[in-house]
């Protein structure tokens, strides 16, 4: 049920504390082939960029919230500190959703998918990944339309005076990247179906994470 790595209790021992978050690892032995190898390389490249951006955004968010606290203690109003962290939050939400898709670690309820045999599960996941790819791609187009309309209006944020469409442009990009990742998973799982290399038990599609 959980993807939290569960150590086993030893008698009278005092084991080291378990990891607060599951160790993340690349999905085990995804099917390969010339096209998939290129796509995986591209995916990993995008992942590295996203991970770097996540770290940057977290640091910026932390900094701006702390500056705000310090500013208030000194009776100083720091213009744009809250806005920076809120915009950072939006970016972080989209980046982390994308990275979570890469690792297939979205929250899901897998009552049926765990109960059915691996071949059926693999076919099911192939279909779900295709649905994800199509929907997210369409949402990327819709989000682009949303951003383009707002660009015409030319609204800017109250404190930082940043054009809103700059931030809104994160949405179509994020949706497009997530759509590509779903498509990659569709290709991987599809190849598993064709080669009868069924999804392993620990890679049933998307992990169930409950805190």
């Amino acid at each position, binding site marked *: *049920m*959980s993807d*939290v790595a*569960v150590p*086993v209790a030893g008698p*009278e021992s*005092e*084991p080291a*504390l*378990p*990891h*607060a*978050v*599951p160790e*993340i690892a690349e999905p085990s032995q995804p099917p390969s082939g010339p096209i998939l190898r290129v796509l995986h390389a591209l995916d990993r490249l995008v992942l590295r960029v996203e991970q770097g951006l*996540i*770290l940057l955004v*977290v640091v910026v*968010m*932390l900094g701006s*919230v*702390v500056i705000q*606290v310090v500013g208030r203690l000194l009776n100083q109003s720091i213009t744009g500190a809250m806005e920076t*962290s*809120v915009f950072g*939050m*939006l970016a*972080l*939400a989209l980046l*982390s*959703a*994308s*990275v*979570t898709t890469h*690792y297939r*670690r*979205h*929250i*899901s*309820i897998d*009552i049926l*998918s*765990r109960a059915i045999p691996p071949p059926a599960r693999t076919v099911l996941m192939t279909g*779900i990944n295709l*649905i994800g790819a199509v*929907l*997210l791609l*369409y*949402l990327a187009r*819709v*989000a682009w339309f*949303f951003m383009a*309309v707002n660009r015409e209006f030319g609204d800017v944020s109250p404190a930082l005076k940043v054009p809103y469409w700059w*931030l809104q442009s994160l*949405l179509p990009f994020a949706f497009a990247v997530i759509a590509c990742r779903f498509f990659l998973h569709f290709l991987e799982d599809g190849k598993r179906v064709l080669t009868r290399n069924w999804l392993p038990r620990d890679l049933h599609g*998307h992990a*169930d*994470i*409950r*805190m």
Partner: protein
Amino acid sequence: MSTSLIITLVFIALMLTGAPLFLAIAVSTALSLALIESGGGLSELLALLWSGSETIQESEALFGVMARLVNIPQEMFDKTTAMPIMIAIPLFTLAGTIITEGQISKRLINIIKALFGFLPAGLAVAALVGCAFFAALSGSSAVTIMAIGGILYPAMMRDGYSDRFSLGLITTAGAIGILAPPSLPLIIFGAVSQADINQLFIAGIVPIIVTIGALSLYSFYFVLTNKEVKRERFSGAEVLTTLKSGVWSMAFPLILLVTIYGGYATPTEASALAVLYAIVVEVFIHRAIRLRDLSKLTIETMVLVGGILSILLIALAFTYYLADQQVPDKMTALMKEYVSSKTGFLIAVNILLLIVGCLMDIFSAILIFAPLIVPVALAYDVDLVHLGIIFIINLEIGFITPPMGLSLFVSSNFFRRPSNEIIYATLPFVIMLFLALGVITFVPEVSLFLVELSKG
């Protein structure tokens, strides 16, 4: 087939087949908006998509569908930028990761054990208090069971507590801390329902004491009826040693409580301070984490957080559909037909949430059901803050209820016991939690007394 029925069936089908929950909500929301725009029928929508834009009317209709779907990114953007409290979700989770990977949590547990262990049923109470602290700080019931279980289970066995009692206690206690600040479920409930987060935090204090009290009562009863249980010996030296080594650890919850309850910082600001404090203590004072490991921890945390935030983002768009179609109003009207009293409504909500808690994770359950239930609850004159506490307690009971109770499976794996044995062991504790839930549900003052006091 009505639009609502199609949407519900699509959502349930996707959810049960293991699709990511955010995708199940996204498909349902997009489909519902498209169906509304295309005239309400699935066949009309499919015909429109199939024929494409061959005629001007079809082009206009397709554009209409897209214009309607624009509400999804718009709601995501507008609501995210209007809710600074969301910042607290990744930051508190990061702080929890750092202190669990480091030493703060472990030293706190040692202090609690040294202080309470010598009392009658002291080790059991120490486990309960330790779990509440640990779950609140780490944000994870699974990690709490493993951490507290690893330390206190051998000690409880040594002192004569039965295997079944120890397993049941630790499994149950892992779930109860999520009501204590900085509780992420409460923050998410506040963000979705527009309830005051500070008031929710204050409201959670007495209910968590009631819950721990109920479980402690059973522990005392167990100790009274089982003469073989020994008490830990009080050791002043051990108390001093643990206090000395745990000074920085004790300051962590204190800083959180003082800054939030004292009004010195908002929960969002407290989350940033918590991360900074955890980094300073674990890296430079305890030297339990290397500076270069922080980036890896941050990325790992954000993968976990990404799962929650993706549901949160799409759920914001889902609430637009609910409001647009006046679903809560219709639900209220329907409910009023069958349930006339506030008490009846509260019973119905408890039953619904207990079922949901058995099947769904706590964050998804809040994000999906709070927008539906909150407007109905307000129509029955239920206090929003009180409802938030009822929500969380019901869902935390879901952690230890079959068939999907996470704590049961974590415990089963960790202690290498069959799930049935763990379920049997938790049964008396679940009964005590039901009693506590009854008190908290039907005596609103338990949750609201301190809130009223804080308002002056």
